[in-house]
C-alpha cells in the first residue's frame, strides 16, 4: 500500500475536436500525466453508456468522454 495510487483512465475522444486537441497538445509539447488510454471515435455521440460500464469493469479507474 506504500505505492502512490496511479489511476488508469479510459478516454473516448471525438476525432474532429478532442482527439485533434490531444494531437495539438502533443505538437505543442504540453506535458501531462501518462494515465490516459485513448480510443478514437467519430463523435462523442458514439459513446454508448455500456462502453463506460465496460471500461470500469475492464480495469480502468475512470472514464473520460470529450467531444
Amino acid at each position, binding site marked *: 500500500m506504500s505505492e502512490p495510487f496511479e489511476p*488508469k483512465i*479510459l478516454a473516448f475522444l471525438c*476525432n474532429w475536436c478532442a*482527439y*485533434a486537441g*490531444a*494531437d495539438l*497538445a*502533443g*505538437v*505543442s*509539447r*504540453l*506535458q*501531462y500525466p*501518462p494515465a490516459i*488510454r*485513448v*480510443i*478514437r*471515435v*467519430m*463523435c462523442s*455521440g*458514439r*459513446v*454508448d*453508456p*455500456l*462502453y463506460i460500464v*465496460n*471500461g470500469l*469493469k*475492464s*480495469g*480502468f479507474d475512470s472514464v473520460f468522454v470529450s467531444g
Partner: protein
Amino acid sequence: MDKFNEGLAKRKAIYKLYPQAIPSGYAIDAEKCRLLGDGKKCEVCAKLCPSDAIDFEQKEQLLNLEVGSVILATGFKTFDPRQFEAYAYASQPNVITSMEFERLLSAGGPTAGHVERPSDLALREEIVKAEKGLKKLDRQLKQLEKKHGKPTAEVVEQFKAGAEDEDYKSWASLAEKFAASDGKLAALKEKEAASHAPRKIAWLQCVGSRDINRCDNAYCSGVCCMYAIKEAVIAREHAKDGLETAIFFMDMRTYGKEFDQYYNRAKESGVRFIRCRVHTIDPVAGSDNLKIRYATEDGRAETEEFDMVVLSVGLESPPGAAELAEKLGIDLDHYRFARTASFAPVNTSVPGIYACGALQGPKDIPYSVMEASAAAGAAGSRLAGARHTLVKEKTFPEERDISAEPARIGVFVCNCGVNIGGVVRVPEVAEYAKTLPNVTYVQENLFSCSQDALEQLVEVIKEQNLNRVVVSACSPRTHEPLFQETLRNSSLNKYLFEQANIRDQCSWVHSSDPDAATEKAKDLVRMAVSRASLIEPLPVPSAPVTPAALVVGGGVAGMVCGLNLAQQGFKVHIVEEKEHLGGHALKLKKTWKGEGVPEFVSKLVDDVTGHDNIEVHLNAKVKEASGFIGNFKTAITLNGGGDVREVEHGVTVLATGAHSIKPDEYLYGKNDRVFRWHELDKAWESDQVKNAGSAVFIQCVGSREPERPHCSKICCTFSVQKAVELKKRNPDIDVYILYRDMRTYGEREDLYKEARALGVIFIRYDLENKPVVRETEGGTLEVTVMDHVLQRPITLKPDFITLATAIYTRGIEELAQIFKVSISQDNFFLEAHMKLRPVDFATDGIFVCGMAHYPKPIEESIAQAEAAAARAATILAQKYVEIEPIVSVVDQDLCIGCGLCETSCPFGAIRLEKIPGKGYRAENISAVCKGCGSCAAACPQKAIDMQHFRDRQIFAAIQAGGARG
C-alpha cells in the same frame, strides 16, 4: 537568429523553417555552415545522417514552366518601426512589434507561450554567458593550483606582498578577473530575481497605418484592431494573475463577422480601450519599463507606466512587388498593391494573371482565403477546356478477398527519428507486440512514412501474407490516409488498417518519463491489435455526380457564381424570389472606387439570361430539398406557388442576400426628409437634395446595439462616399457625419481623408449619448449631438438626414432547415470555418456567398461568389464522388421501430419506414450519414451498429486497454 521567431530565439545552421513547415524538411543555412560559409572542414552532418540526405552540391535551379495562367499570392510585409524614433522600438528592448508578441504567445515560440519581457530574456542570456565565462576562469585557476600545488588565495597574498614572479602575476590577474566576473554574475542574478513576467502591457494601434505625417502609410491596415484585441485577451487568459492590458486606438475597426462581439467580450473581461494616439514613449530609468504620454479625447494630458509596449504594426506591399509587377507588366496602385477592379476583384491588369491576398491590399485571413479560391476559380474557368488533359489517373491493384482467412496482423513500430525513439523504448514495444494474439509479423522503422518504408510495407504485406496492418506511430488524423493508400497498393482493403498514436499522444507529452511512456505505448499497441483483429474490409461506394448547380438568389453574388459555373460548362439553375434579377445592386450607383454599378449589373443580367447553360427561375422559391453531395434533388415552386419544378443538381449555392432595417427612430417614416441609404440615391437629383445647404448622416442605426450587436461593415464607406459626392457637387453644402467608430478599412481610408479635406465634419457619439432628431414647429429638422471634442451638445439644422441602417437577413431560417445548414448568432449563414473555409458549409456540397454570409461591399461579394463557384467546381468536375462507408447499419430484425435513432440523428440520415405487416423499421440513408454513431448509442435494442466502429471492435479495445500489462 531564428527569423520565424522574429529574432527572439536562436537556431542552428541546420534548421527547419518552423515546426509545421511544408515540406517538413531541414535545410542548411549556407552562410552559417562551417563548410559552406566559412570554408572550414566539418561535414559532421553528412557522416551522421543515416539516409545520406545531405548534399553540399545543391544549387539554385532555374525552372521553365509552361502554364495557362498565373496566380500571384506573395503576401505582405509588416511595417518596420525602427525608422521612427517616436516609437522607441530601436532603443527600448521592451517595445516590440505585434508579430514579435505573436511569437511570445505561441506554444511553439521562443518562450513556449509564456509572455516574457525581451529585457529579461536578454538578461538570462547574459547570465548564461557570464556563468560560462566564470566556469572557464575557474577551470584555469584550478589547473594552476594543481600545477603549482598551491591555493590561489596564497598566490594572491604573495603577489600583493610584492612577489615578482611573471607566472604569479598572470595567475593573480586571473584571480582578479574571476572575482570581478563573480561579482558581475551576482549582480545579474540579483536583477533576475527582481524581474517578473509583465504585469502591464500596452498596445499602440495604427503604427505605420493611417498616418501621413511621417511617411508612414495613409491607408488602414484593416487587421490590427482585431489582432491587438486577440493578443490582449489571450495574454490575459494565459497570465491568469490579472495581467493589465490597455489598447490605445483611434477608431476600433472590428468590422468582420462576429468581431464586434469579440470586442465587447474583451471590454467586459477587463481589457482597457483608450481612444487616443500616443505621442511619446519614454524609458523609465533603472527598470526597463516605459512611460506613455498621451492626450485624452477631452484634451487632458496623461502619463502611464507599462512593463511592455506592443506596436500594432500595419501591413505593407511585400518586398519585390514592384520588380514582380514590372516583369509581368501588371499595374500597382499608389500604395504599391496589385491593382484590381471591384467587378473583377482577383484579375490584375494583365489577362490570365490573378492576384489574391494582401498583395492586392491589406486584408484578413477569411477574405484572403476567399480571394484564393476566387483566383483558383478564375484561373480554372480560363483553363476549363484543358481540364483533365494533364492528369494521370491513379489505379490500384484488385483487392484480395480475405473473408476466409484468420487474422494475420503485421505491427510496424515507428521511431519517428528521435520523436518517439528518444522517449519510448521502441525495441521493447516491438518485442512486446510479438507476444500479442494474431500478430504474425513485427518490424521497427526509423520513419514509417518515408517513401522507402512505404514501398517496403507493400512488399512485406505480400511476403508475409498479412491481412491486417497496425502502424504504431503518429496520429491517424495526419497519416491514416497515407498508410491506407499503401494498403490499397498491396491489394488490401484500406479499412484493414489501424494506427496506434504513440507520438502525438505519448512520447511528445510524456517526454520526461520514458518508463511510463513505454508502458503506455505497449497498452496502445495492445488496444490497436485487439481492435485490428476484428476490423473488416468495407467497400467504398461511389455515386455519379450530377454536373449541375442550383444557385438560390439572383443578386450580384448569385449571378456571378452562376455565370462562372456556366462558363466552365456546368448547367446552372438560378432561383430568384423577385420578378427580376439584380437584387439590391439595382439601387446602387457607384462603388467606392467610382465604378458605375448599373452598367455592370445590366451587362451581368444580359450575360446570365443569354447563357445557354443557365436556366433562370423568376418568381420562384425553394420548397424542399433532399439528397447529398453530387446528388441533390430540389423542388422549386414557380409563379408564386402555382407550379412545382423538380431540379437535380450536384451542388447548391445559397446567395440570398440581406436587407437594411426600417428603423423606428430618428423620425424615419415620419418625416420625408429622413432617408435610408438607397433612398438618398433615389432622391439625388431632387431639389430637396440638390439645393440643400446642410446634410447629416447618422451611422450605426440599429447596428452595434445590444439587440443587433454586429457591425454592418459597409455603412461608413457608403456615407463617406456620399458626403464626398455631395461636397464635390456643391462645395458650399455643410455635411456632418455622426459616427461611433469610423470604419473605412483598407484603402477606403483614402475616401475618409478626402472627405475631411473637403470639409466634411465628423462628430463622434457614444451609444449612451445618441443623437436626437426632432422636427421643429416650423417643420425643419434639428439634430442635437454631444460633440466629443467640445464636450458639449451642439445643434445642427440639416435639410435632410441619411440613416446608415443595419443590414440583416430575412427568412434564412427556412432555407437553413431545408438544406440542413447552420446560422450564426447574428442570423447570417454560418460557414464551416470562419477563417479557413469561408464559403463552404459544414454540410458537403453546399456553399454560401454574398450578403447572406455577412454584410460586405460589392467587390467582396463578387470575390466570394467566384470563390463559391471555384469550390463548387471541384465537385462538379468529378465524375463520381466517393462515399465514406463509415456509416450506421440497421438490423431490421432487431429493430422495434421506436424512432429514438431518428430523433438522435442530427443529419436526417436515418428514418423510419413502414414495412407491411411489421409496422415501422429504421432505415439508414448512407449517403447522408456522417458516421457519428449517435443512433447506435441511442438504440435500446442494439439493432444499429457503426461500420468500422462496431460495438465489438470498441469493446475489444476497451478490454485490451483495461488489462494491466
